[in-house]
């Protein structure tokens, strides 16, 4: 807000024709004076831009491919999710009832959201995502995280993003980031109620993740997220979990098409129906 107010005052001053405005001031100056003023303004602009660039450059860059952390010496290959979330979470009675109702529907049939090509949703996307890797793309004003499973995408707005009223409730919510030194702090709101993940939550849930980058004993690049989820409707106290990733140098995410088989099945069925009709005629 302060930046916008300052910008509006400065532009009013620059456009000002009166003796207090920049245009008014330049008219009263001699040509050498004008040149001096112009040089001073250019110098200020360059210094400001350089300072902003230096501040951005000072932030750690988490960009790249990250996979589930494994201790040194552990086999590479498809990973499984760390069981970072508490095994027996402090659910409220309301949460327990809703989760039990959901499970009574899906468990006899062996159904899961992933089986229906539905993404994990936060915080499961961050904590688990089925053990698949993620890609982190960082710009000063936005971090884009792509979880390979279901090509699930999160956008973390740094110093911007929609106002609370403009947030559309979703499985991954809306995330706002800020830097505290070398730590990226991400707050997520706008979540839909989710009883279909082990880290179930209500639509009142707020998630805070604190991301830091470091190295493990083997000198490998490690990204760590400390997560706290606060949700008085579903939890009797805030729940915390830690998730770690290992950098995959020169790695890449694979595409994750999931809905296509159902579409292909539908087309096959239509072809069969058409062929059956043709046989009747």
């Amino acid at each position, binding site marked *: 807000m302060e930046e916008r107010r300052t910008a509006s005052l400065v532009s009013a001053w620059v456009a000002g024709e009166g003796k207090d405005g920049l245009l008014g001031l330049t008219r009263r100056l001699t040509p050498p004076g004008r040149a001096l003023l112009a040089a001073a303004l250019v110098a200020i602009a360059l210094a400001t831009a350089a300072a902003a660039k230096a501040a951005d450059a000072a932030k750690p860059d988490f960009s790249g491919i990250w996979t589930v952390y494994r201790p040194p010496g552990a*086999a*590479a290959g*498809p990973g499984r*999710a760390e069981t970072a979330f508490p095994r027996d979470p402090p659910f409220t009675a309301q949460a327990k009832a809703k989760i039990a109702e959901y499970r009574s529907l899906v*468990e006899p049939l*062996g159904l899961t959201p992933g089986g229906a090509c539905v993404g994990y949703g936060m915080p499961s996307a961050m904590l688990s995502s089925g053990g698949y890797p993620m890609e982190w793309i960082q710009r000063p004003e936005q971090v884009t995280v792509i979880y390979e*499973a279901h090509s699930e995408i999160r956008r973390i707005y740094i110093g911007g993003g929609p106002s609370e009223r403009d947030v559309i409730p979703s499985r991954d919510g809306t995330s706002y980031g800020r830097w505290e030194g070398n730590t990226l702090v991400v707050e997520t709101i706008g979540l839909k109620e989710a009883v279909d993940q082990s880290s179930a939550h209500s639509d009142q849930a707020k998630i805070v993740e604190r991301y830091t980058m470091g190295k493990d004993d083997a000198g490998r690049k490690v990204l760590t997220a400390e997560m706290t989820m606060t949700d008085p409707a579903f939890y009797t106290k805030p729940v915390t979990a830690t998730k770690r990733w290992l950098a995959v140098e020169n790695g890449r995410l*694979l595409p*994750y*098409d999931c809905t296509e088989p159902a579409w292909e099945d539908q087309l096959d069925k239509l072809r069969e129906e058409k062929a059956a009709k043709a046989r009747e005629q």
Partner: protein
Amino acid sequence: MNGTWIATIAALVLLLPLQGFAHHSAAQFNFTTPKPISGTVKEVRMANPHMRLVLTVTDEKGTRDIEYEGHSLNNLYRAGWRPDSVKVGDKITITIAPRKDGADGGYVTKVKMADGQEF
């Protein structure tokens, strides 16, 4: 096929029932009684979240087509599968976690090609 990958896949499969499937309930399959099945590939669809494999199998119950499912395309890719690995008409041996209800079918935990390649 790299032994480390196979060990990883085996570990992954063993852990799945404990972890709960990423995409599937483990309830339908019995992972503690792996069973080898040999047959001819009739249909193969590598896909997410699960691959589908139809084998023409002959055993004491006769000859029939049986549908199986298995890991995701992406996990199989990382285990060594490539688009030209399994083709219709190939004779292969798979290891499955059979269905608990005893019906045909199951969850594929390993594929062994005629040339010995495994994933």
